């Protein structure tokens, strides 16, 4: 092929000619850039992020930490809170379906638990016993929600309640096997409660050092040895934050507040249920505030602030997240 022909054919590819003398080697046309790896190849040994979206009745699977969309799973009804077990399986509550779905690390629905007594919202897995705790937000017939413990993550569950609590939202186990869970009273006030290990009685945990307005995530942070509780209405505004609480003698004292921001530096309208992982706080922003599209974020923890990664092309009304590690 002559140089003239090569130039003619290379209308798309960048071509550079350098007059360098009769002994110079003509530059090769630049190779086209490799396509961006927006959809990662499935690699079953990596941690994956599962995000529930009741707006689309789907669960998205993203890679970590770059949030590449791996898969979109369907077959859910109102998927909400999530938790993961030590096998890499992810449990996803289906609110109006009164079902808790069990997903494999590959995103396949491999089982479910029935919840006939109410609308499941959050869940928590106890690695010591294999029990699955499910928080029923509320029940039909004007009745309050409840805490259900499925022994070894199978039915039927045992039901617990906190006498002052009406709505039951999210929960998390500490390393000793105590279960902490949040919610609200019938009047709408935030509540934190505990089901101690080997106990059949729940008790309210008083919160000091600040005010939590609307129940969010509950997770034990082994790094700080504190309970992390989310607030969907930080400072009673359409903003999200999480608090570290030092738990002692049935009381929770707020020690650290982590405020998170969206991709444009504004408040996160509503992070319903996030998760801590590898020094990061991961969660989705259900943006009913209208400031930007709903998205999933990674933030440095406990610093918070600007996200280190975000993904906004999939999420509609994102709700809960969980990490699956196989």
């Amino acid at each position, binding site marked *: 092929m002559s140089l003239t022909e090569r130039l003619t054919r290379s209308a798309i590819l960048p071509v550079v000619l350098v007059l360098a003398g009769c002994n110079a080697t003509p530059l090769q046309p630049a190779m086209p850039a490799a396509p961006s790896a927006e959809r990662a190849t499935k690699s079953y040994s990596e941690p994956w992020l599962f995000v529930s979206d009741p707006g689309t009745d789907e669960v998205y699977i993203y890679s970590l930490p770059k949030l590449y969309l791996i898969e979109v799973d369907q077959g859910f009804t109102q998927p909400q809170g999530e938790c993961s077990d030590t096998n890499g399986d992810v449990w996803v509550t289906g609110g109006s379906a009164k079902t808790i779905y069990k997903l494999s690390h590959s995103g396949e629905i491999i089982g479910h638990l029935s919840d006939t007594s109410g609308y499941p919202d959050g869940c928590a897995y106890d690695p010591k016993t294999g029990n699955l705790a499910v928080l029923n937000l509320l029940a039909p017939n004007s009745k309050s929600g409840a805490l259900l413990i499925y022994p070894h993550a199978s039915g039927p569950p045992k039901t617990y309640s906190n006498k002052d609590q009406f709505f039951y939202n999210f929960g998390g186990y500490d390393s000793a096997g105590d279960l902490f869970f949040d919610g609200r009273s019938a009047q709408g006030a935030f509540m934190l409660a505990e089901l101690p290990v080997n106990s059949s009685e729940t008790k309210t945990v008083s919160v000091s050092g600040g005010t939590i307005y609307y129940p969010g995530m509950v997770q034990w942070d082994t790094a700080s040895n504190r309970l992390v509780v989310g607030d969907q209405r930080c400072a009673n505004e359409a903003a999200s934050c999480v608090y570290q609480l030092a738990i002692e003698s049935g009381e929770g004292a707020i020690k650290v507040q982590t405020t998170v921001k969206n991709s444009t530096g504004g408040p996160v309208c509503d992070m319903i249920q996030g998760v801590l992982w590898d020094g990061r706080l991961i969660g989705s922003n259900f943006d*009913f505030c209208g*400031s930007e599209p709903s998205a999933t974020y990674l933030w440095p923890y406990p610093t918070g602030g600007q996200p280190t990664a975000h993904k906004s092309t999939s999420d509609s009304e994102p709700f809960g997240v969980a990490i699956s590690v196989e």
Partner: protein
Amino acid sequence: MRLLLIGAVLATTGCASPPSYVAAPASQSMSLERPNHRHAWMNVSAKKLDLLYISEADGEVTVYTYWQRTLVGELTDFYQPQGECVDKAGNVYVTDSFERRIVEYAHAGTKPLRTIDDSPYAPYGCSVAASTGDLAVANEAGGASKGNIAIYPGASGTPTYYTDKNIPNFRDCAYNSGGDLLASNDQQGSDVSSFAWFPTGGGRLINVTLPGPSPSWTWKDVTGIQWDGKYWVIDDYQPYRVSVIDGQGYYIGFTPIEASGGTAGPFWIYNDDPTEQGTQVVGVFSEPSRDYVYYWDYPSGGAPIAEIGKDISLQPVALTVSLSAKP
């Protein structure tokens, strides 16, 4: 006339049994108190009492004592009074759809405190947020191309309009005690009712699916939405309780009101303690030949416990309860 839009007619199987109570002589009250000319009027004793305001198809709003069910006043100068709502001071807002306005009255007042120009839209349902005093108005398109939810801050001034791509015309709306708003459409051009949720602090309407009593449930003919102190109540021939939390709808239950021989709705929940659930539901009951306003226990429902309309002609379209100032 709104009742014609609803259009459902059931075979006459007999009226509900008259409730066992002693009714106040409403017709006698009218002949003694009602003036001959169509000016607004109100008994002076009305101010101390809980009042039931009824928008009527003839362009008037009639006012009854809630408990005694005695006619004690009339508000006039409306063309098409439709939805009504009330704020925590007991002020009553009446939407006049044809005139594209909302008129505010003090409890037992006859002169408007304020007239809000809502043109070019046609206002129907309304609700006042207890926490902020914001007035939300469910607008049909009227003279515009599309309806919306208009939120007037502090019930005055320039509203902010919120539209929804799935709901071209809004009909009903209600705030809960936390300041979240639930709204629904009218039935024009649609076989089912759709709902939108506007949370406190929010910036847009979010479409929400409300489950019903069965998996295959569809909302056919929603004629109103109220807040009963704990749950939203959807008027769809019966009062159904629902909840919306984090943008997700939940079905709570319904009040089985006995209303044979006609159709019931819209309703209003009587509640004199905003921290508790309401204790009675009052609603329009339409038979083929006449209309009533019935009272039922709430949330238990059952047979009517009282009525208005046995001795007088009513054309009720909507209603609201304005509580007297409590000591």
